[in-house]
């Protein structure tokens, strides 16, 4: 069998997804045995020009991680889409915006002002902001355009498969690679590497009566490692999040952050979570409700930690 051409790309992301690919450890050699890596900026030397010179469809599979934040991300996404037979949105950022998309709560100008002028580590008395073009004696310098909205991959190009996770777990990555190699692929548009049931379904903790009198942040209590974290007042996203991650956070006594995304049929993970949290609050009067809600720091950022690009409400850009 001819070797597969594989491309991995990072757009607006932290690099964790690339590291997760390396976390398959010695199996990376098996991947190298069946696939030629034509582009992987984090690990191998590849040039955009080489990709541009390829015939459409040359790349068999592209694992694209990261959100689309600027014009460079968009350009490469469109380029790789053209050259790839199978485009995979790999990791939470490509699937639904991820952490970078939390910026969608703010407008573009606020983000730039904060980052380039106000952060404590910034010294910028002249208030210099990045420009897409700048004339200097040596010629013209250019930078990608910073968009006003952080998009997930399928808002920019057609996506064939989704692999959620921040990052996807190495075991699931290996499953995906095997599926590609064997040609045993699910129908287009499927979410691969995650289950159809909620994380609670695979969580081994003891679940009893969910009645919460106050919520805690993770640093405020040491939770009982045997009992349901939600029952102990930690905002665990398990009830509204797909399983398949192996409940790694839960095993480390930390609540689920929701990176595997909403369950099938759910269009807005955060809204569903508001719904489920509302029904476990053990209070009756509006005043008690208010004081209980005071114990939730940053509800929107918590409930939409990985899903702002696909949220029904568009934040500051409505």
């Amino acid at each position, binding site marked *: 069998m001819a070797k597969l051409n594989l491309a991995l790309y990072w757009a607006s992301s932290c690099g964790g997804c690339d590291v997760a690919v390396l976390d398959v450890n010695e199996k990376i050699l098996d991947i190298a045995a069946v696939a030629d890596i034509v582009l992987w900026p984090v690990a191998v030397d590849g040039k955009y020009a080489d990709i541009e010179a390829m015939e459409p469809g040359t790349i068999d599979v592209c694992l694209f991680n990261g959100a*689309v934040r600027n014009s460079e991300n*968009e350009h490469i996404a469109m380029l790789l889409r053209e050259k790839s037979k199978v485009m995979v949105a790999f990791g939470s950022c490509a699937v639904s915006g991820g952490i970078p998309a939390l910026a969608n*709560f703010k407008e573009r100008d606020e983000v730039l002002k904060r980052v380039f002028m106000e952060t404590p580590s910034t010294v910028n008395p002249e208030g210099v902001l990045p420009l897409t073009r700048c004339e200097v004696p040596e010629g013209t310098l250019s930078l990608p355009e910073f*968009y*006003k*909205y952080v*998009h997930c991959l*399928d*808002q*920019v190009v057609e996506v064939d498969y989704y692999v959620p996770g921040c990052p996807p777990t190495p075991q699931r990555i290996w499953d995906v690679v095997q599926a590609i190699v064997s040609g045993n692929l699910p129908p287009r548009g499927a979410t691969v590497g995650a289950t159809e049931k909620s994380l609670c379904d695979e969580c081994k903790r003891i679940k009893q009566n969910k009645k919460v009198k106050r919520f805690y942040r993770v640093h405020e209590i040491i939770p009982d490692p045997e009992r349901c974290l939600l029952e102990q007042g930690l905002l665990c996203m398990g009830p509204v999040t797909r399983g398949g991650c192996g409940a790694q956070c839960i095993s480390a006594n930390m609540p689920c952050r929701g990176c595997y995304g909403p369950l099938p049929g*759910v*269009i*807005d993970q*955060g*809204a*569903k979570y*508001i*719904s489920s*949290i*509302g*029904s476990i*609050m053990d*209070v*009756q009067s*509006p005043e008690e*409700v*208010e004081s209980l*809600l005071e114990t*939730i720091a*940053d*509800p*929107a*950022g918590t*409930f939409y930690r990985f899903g702002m*690009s*696909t*949220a*029904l*409400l*568009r*934040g*500051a*850009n*409505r």
Partner: protein
Amino acid sequence: MENFEPKIIGFLCNWCSYAGADLAGVGRMQYPSNLRVIRVMCSGRVDPTFVFKALSEGADGVLIAGCHPGDCHYTDGNYNTLKRIPLMLKVLEQFGVEKERVRMEWISAAEGSIFAGVVKEFTETVRKLGPYKRNGLERGGKVG
């Protein structure tokens, strides 16, 4: 903005508020036609998804009305509303949405005049706030 007629979606519970709206109709009470009523079996059935979807698809305000606490046909469905909606309002505020756009009211089957009053007042509130959409960009719309 002068001729702005807000679109308001009203989720009314079958047992109290919808009957209250019926009473307002039977009693020929005048109230603005900006409200589009959707009957639900219980105000506790109103998932925040409904509210967010309404706003994202063209509504300028959302009214959620149910039985008074203690009067729920299903014993405690409206207590879920009472806890869920304030949390949703907090999230809405973080999204930059004026929380006056979403209103929770308890209206019994006997309170037709209160229903008419709430709709009148709420329509004016939303009219003052203006349209929900600022730039007309659709969800997941054009890149940029």
